[in-house]
């Protein structure tokens, strides 16, 4: 099932005319923050944005066609921690979170037809379960069929524990689809935003023809706390941040949000 949707003007930043920057604690005028793509005009901190806002920032005219909107999470394990997983998902959907942890859309970026998948951190930490795996795999398959380039904007804590081994297998499923995209020589740009960790980093987020990170984004395999517990020492300043990854050769570019759309367009123009 697909439908057309105009980009909404919603944001994750709390209600009210004034908001506090998470980077410098300055009080900012909401409209101003919105106009600067949720990058603090004072300190440059990149605030997390919803999948919808991300698409409106990247796609021309804020117009796009949502794809695979009918796919949602099941509860194959009957998983219960402090609350049943099925209830968690239901509650989120009732609060209006309709696209699970990823929103896939077809649209144009600087005139280039493409497919963009933007992850939704507010949906269980952007975690990847089978619904996310299925939507991203279908996105890749759609690119294979249409020869449209693919952009995935990752923002995720990794695999969704509540779906157990089946969430782990999404890594294999998506990566296998990316193998086909790779062989078909269709460009795939991976955008890594704060945070991208675990099974998402260890599969599609690191497999871009180009990997582009936003400034300051935390990107890694193991979470900082797990590493600290393992090695029993404090982690160095800036560890696992975008700039650290650039220095260690893991990303092609670190690009501020204001230049992200233009950079993707320039790269795609070279590659297509």
């Amino acid at each position: 099932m697909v439908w057309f949707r105009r980009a909404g003007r919603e944001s994750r930043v709390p209600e009210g005319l004034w908001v506090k920057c998470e980077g410098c604690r300055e009080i900012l005028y909401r409209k101003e923050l919105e106009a600067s793509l949720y990058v603090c005009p004072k300190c440059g901190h990149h605030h997390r944005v919803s999948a919808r806002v991300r698409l409106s920032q990247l796609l021309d005219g804020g117009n796009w066609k949502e794809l695979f909107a009918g796919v949602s999470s099941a509860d194959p394990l009957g998983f219960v921690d402090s609350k049943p997983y099925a209830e968690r998902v239901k509650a989120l959907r009732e609060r209006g979170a309709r696209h699970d942890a990823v929103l896939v859309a077809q649209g144009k970026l600087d005139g280039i037809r493409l497919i963009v998948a933007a992850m939704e951190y507010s949906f269980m930490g952007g975690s990847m379960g089978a619904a996310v795996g299925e939507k991203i795999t279908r996105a890749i398959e759609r690119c294979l069929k249409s020869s449209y380039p693919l952009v995935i904007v990752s923002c995720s804590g990794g695999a969704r524990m509540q779906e157990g081994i089946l969430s782990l297998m999404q890594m294999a499923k998506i990566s296998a689809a990316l193998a086909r995209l790779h062989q078909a020589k269709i460009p795939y740009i991976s955008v890594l935003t704060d945070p991208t960790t675990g099974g998402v980093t260890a599969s599609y987020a690191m497999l871009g023809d180009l990997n582009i990170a936003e400034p300051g984004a935390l990107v890694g395999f193991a979470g900082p706390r797990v590493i600290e517990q393992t090695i029993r020492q404090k982690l160095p300043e800036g560890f696992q941040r975008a700039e650290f990854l650039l220095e260690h050769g893991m990303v092609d570019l670190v690009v501020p949000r204001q230049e992200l759309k233009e950079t993707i367009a320039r790269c795609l123009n070279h590659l297509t």
Partner: protein
Amino acid sequence: MAGAAVPSFLATLEALRQQVSEAERQGDRAEAARLKEQLDAEARRVTATVTPWQRCLIARHAERPYTLDYVRGLMTDWVELHGDRGFADDPAIVTGLASFDGDSVVVVGHQKGRDTRDRLYRNFGQPRPEGYRKALRVMRLAEKFRLPVISFVDTPGAYPGIDAEERGQAEAIARNLREMAALETPIVVVVTGEGGSGGALAIGVGDRVFMLEHAVYSVISPEGCAAILWKDQSETQRAAEALRLTANDLLGFGVIDEILPEPLGGAHMDPPLAVRTVGTALRTALAELRRIRPADLPRRRYAKFRKMGAFLER
């Protein structure tokens, strides 16, 4: 780190096992036979009542066969190959060439150590990026020379350390997933002990995936899951149940193809028997896969993994 101490639910079994071998050593056949009966009864009891968490402990048992035990028990002409050609050799993953039933094969596998020194040397079977890159290099070699790949999975997980992150642990795992999916040679995977998340899957994409009866395979360790979801390490047993990480669960989910039975009480009770069982499964799988054109394997492998995962659709 797990491994050395005998878990309490296995204590009687361990004691009986030692008594049997002691009686055999002293040539007391009658006593040995009597104890063996007790041992079998206890092994049956343990197997019948085993919980998911207890399976984790059996899967981590220090005397369980590891990759090199399978190589020694099933193969000849073993030539271990070292290094990723980029940074280092990682002893947490072993790779090499061997003969299996007279045919050359490529083996990759996690390797744990048996005593304290060896465990440290093998980093408790937790690979760094160079381990995964070595495995990929050798699998490429297999493809080039038309040899099947046999992969043994047994790791608590990929190593979570500063150096591993600096050298791209995530990238190394991701690349293996993509490249294994497209490899034009048969890949048979056996989860022999711990299937520790992405660190296991990074050498676990195959045309056939087997799992030993008491092996476990999970997105996160029960300890890690308990710490995150229940904020309480003592909830580990509950987490082990909730995660559905046993071979039976995985067979039901369609993640593995077949469960390989273990000797009563676990593979450590009779390692040669466990090794032989794995050998039989490998033999059958390789014979089947050899009949498929190598170029067709990626398409079939894709279809296999494409189906994994349950979701709703309206």
